C-alpha cells in the first residue's frame, strides 16, 4: 500500500516536471520567434494600396508600384526636426552602400526646404523619398513615430521593424538578412 502510494507520487512529480520543461522550451521558442506587433498591419502584411507623392519631383504614384523589382525594401520614416534621425543617417548610408535593398524614405510631418537641407547636410541614403505631411502614411504602416524603420520583402511582408534609431546591431542584422 505504502509503495503504491509512493509510485503514484513519483509519477505525479514526473508529470509536473515534464510539463515544466516542456513549458520552458515552448516559451523559449516563442521568444525566438519573430514578433512584429503593429495594430494596423494584418498578418505582418504591409498595406500598399494608397497614393504617395514624391519629395523631390512631386509626382503621385501608387505605393504598390514603388514596391516592385527588388527582393528587399527598407522603409525609413524620418524628419528633419528629429534629432535621432541625424545619427541614424550614417547607418542608412552604410546600408545603401553595402546591401541590395531599395531604400525608401518617408518624410514625416516636415517641410520640403528643411527636408532637402537635411539630406544635403547628412547625406541622402534613399532611392526614393515620399512625403507624409499629415502622418497618415506612417499610420498605414502602423508606425509609432520617428524614426522608425521597416524591412519588408518582395511579398510586402514585414520582416523587421525597428522603433527608434537604428544601431550597429540592427545594421548588422539587416545586412545578414538581405545579403543571404
Amino acid at each position, binding site marked *: 500500500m505504502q509503495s503504491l502510494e509512493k509510485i503514484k507520487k513519483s509519477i505525479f512529480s514526473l508529470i*509536473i516536471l515534464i510539463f*515544466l520543461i516542456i513549458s520552458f522550451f*515552448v516559451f*523559449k521558442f516563442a*521568444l525566438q*520567434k519573430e514578433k512584429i506587433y503593429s495594430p494596423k498591419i494584418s498578418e505582418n502584411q504591409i498595406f500598399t494600396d494608397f497614393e504617395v507623392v514624391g519629395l523631390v519631383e512631386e509626382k503621385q504614384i501608387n505605393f504598390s508600384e514603388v514596391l516592385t523589382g527588388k527582393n528587399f525594401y527598407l522603409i525609413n520614416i524620418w524628419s528633419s526636426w528629429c534629432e535621432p534621425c541625424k545619427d541614424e543617417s550614417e547607418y542608412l548610408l552604410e546600408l545603401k552602400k553595402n546591401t541590395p535593398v531599395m531604400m525608401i524614405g518617408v518624410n514625416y510631418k516636415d517641410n520640403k526646404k528643411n527636408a532637402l537641407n537635411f539630406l544635403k547636410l547628412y547625406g541622402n541614403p534613399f532611392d526614393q523619398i515620399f512625403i507624409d505631411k499629415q502622418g497618415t502614411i506612417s499610420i498605414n504602416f502602423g508606425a509609432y513615430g*520617428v524614426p522608425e524603420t521597416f524591412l519588408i520583402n518582395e511579398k510586402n511582408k514585414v520582416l523587421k521593424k525597428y522603433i527608434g534609431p537604428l544601431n550597429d546591431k540592427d545594421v548588422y542584422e539587416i545586412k545578414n538578412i538581405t545579403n543571404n
Partner: protein
Amino acid sequence: MIISQLGYYSLIFGLLTSIFIFFNSSIQLKKNNLVISDKTFSLIGFQFFFVLISFISLIYSFIISDFSNETVYNNSHTTKPLFYKITGTWGNHEGSLLLWLLVLTGVLLGFIFKSRNEPNSYRLLTTLFHQIIVIGFFIFVLKTSNPFNEIFPVQTEGLGLNPILQDPALGIHPPILYLGYVGTSIIFSAALASMISNYVNKSWAKNIKFWILFSWIFLTGGILLGSIWAYYELGWGGFWFWDPVENVSLMPWLSLTALLHCIVTLEKRELFKKWTIVLCIITFALSMVGTFLVRSGILNSVHTFANDPSRGIYILTFLLVLVLLSFVIFIIYENKNFAQKSEIFTLSKETAVLINNWFILYFLSVVLIGTIYPIFLDVILDEQISVGPPFYNKLILPFLIPFVLFMSIGPSMKWIKTNFKFRAKSFFVIVFTMVLSFFTVYFIGEKNIFILLLFIGFFYLLLKSLDQLREKTKNFAQIFSHTGFSLLLISILLNSFSSREIVKNIQVGESFALKNEKIIFKKIAIEKEKNYESIVGFFEILDDKNTIINLQPEIRIYNEPEMATSEASIKTTLFKDRFITINIIKDQNFFNVRYQHKSFMIWIWISTLIIMLGGMFAIFRKNKEVNI
C-alpha cells in the same frame, strides 16, 4: 554623469553585499550558529540602501534630464512636466526593474524586522532563499538592462515618454503593483524556509499572514489603478479586457486570495500544510511568469518596453531554476516534516475553505489557459488565435453562481463542525434576495434565467455578508471584502447589461440622440500646452428635464514623441458615467464621436476599494481573533 556612475557602482555594491549575505548565512546555517547578528541585519539594511541610492540617482538623472544616460535619453524630454519626469523613471524597462529590485530588497528588510520573535533558523533560511532571488535580479539588471548606460556623444534632447503613459494614475500604478507582485517573493522564500526548518505551523501562519495580506492589498490596488487608467486613458470605455497583461496580474491575485483563506485555516487548525506551501510557490511562480510574459515581448502591449529576447530567456531560465528548486525542496521535505492530520470532510469552515480554493483554482486555470494557450499554439502549430471575453464568460460565469453561494454560507460556518439550524431569518434573506433579483432583472429588461440566477447569487452574497454585521463577534475584514466582492460582481453585471453607446460621424453644430438625451456638438478649440497641443471638442448633453451637462473630450498631439492620444471626457454620477471620446477622420471636417452611458462605473472602483479595505482591517486587527 557622476550621478549615473554613483547609481551604477551602488548597484554593484548591492550585488556584492547580496553574495556576501548569501555565503554568510549559509555558513551560519552550516555551523548551526543560529543567530541573526546585528551584522546580518545591517547587511540587509545596506543592501536595501545601495539599491535605494541607485534608484534615487536614476530619478535625479530624470529630473535634471541628463541625456548622457541612455535610459533618460530614451524615455524623457526636457519639455515634460516634472511629475512625468519622475514617473518616467519607472515608465521604462530598466527603471522599472530597478524599482523591482528596490522592493525586493525592501521586503526582506521588512521581513527580518517584523520576524524578530521567530526562530532564527527560519529567518536565516528565508534570507538565504531570498538572496537567490535578489542575486538573480541584480545580475539581470546589470547584465541585460543596466539603467545607467551612457551614450556618447551626449544628446541635447531626449526621445520622450510614451504619451499614454503620461497620466497620474499610471504614475503610481507601477510602484503599487510592484509592492504586491514582489511581496510574493518573501512569501516564497519564507515558505521554503519554513518547510526546511520544520516550522509550518500556527506561528508561521501568523507570521507570514502579514505578508500575504500586504501583497494582496497592493496587488488589488495596483490592478485597480491599471484598470482606472485603461478606462479613461485608452478611451475604450471598459475597465477589463481580458488582455494577457491584465490576466497575468489577475493570476497571482487569485492564488493569493486562495492562499489568504488557507493561511487562516492553517493558523486556526493546522490544516492544509502542504497545500499552503504549494500555493505559496504557485503564487510567486505566477508573478514571475507575469514578469516574464510582460517584459520579454512575447506578449505585446503598452507594458512591453523593448523586445529583447536575451532578457526573456534570462528571466525564463531563472524562473525555471527557482521553480525546480522549490519543487525539489518540496519533494524532499514533504514527507519528512508533515505528519498529515486526517482531513475529514465535515460540514465545517475547513471544508468551505477547501471548496473556495477549488473554485479559485479553477478560475485561475481558465485564465492561465486563456493566456498561454495562444502562445503554445503559435509555437507548436504556427497558428495565431486570440482568446477574448466570450471564452472567459462561458467558462467563468456559470461557476460563479455556486462559488458565491459557498462564499455566502462559508463565513457563518464553524471550525471543525457546524450544525445548521434553519432559522426564520435565513428565510427572510432568501426571500429578500429573490425580490431584489427579480426587480433588478425586470428593471434592466433582460429576461434571461441565467442572468437572474447570477443576480440571485450575487445579491445573496451581499445580503449574507451585510447580515453578519448583526452578529456579536464581527469580523470586519471578511465582511468588508466579501461585501466589496459582491458589490463588484453586481456592478460589473449591471454595467455590462445596461450600458449604451452610440458612434456617429458629425460636424461642429450637428447633434444626435441617445435614449432621451440630445448630444450637441458646440464647437472645437485648439489649445497649446507645454508638452502637447490639443483639439478640444465642446459638447452639450441635454436630457428630458433640460439639464445641461458639458463634456470636453480632447485629442492630444504630443510633441515628444509625436503621437496622438484621445482623452475621454467623463461625467460621473452615482448610477452612470457619461463617457465621450472624439477622433479625427481623415478629411478633417467630420469628427468621429463616441458617446456612452456606462452604468455603475463608480461602483466598480468603490467596491474594489472596499475589498482592499477588508484586507487592511485584517492587517490592523491581527492581534485579535480573526476568522475568515
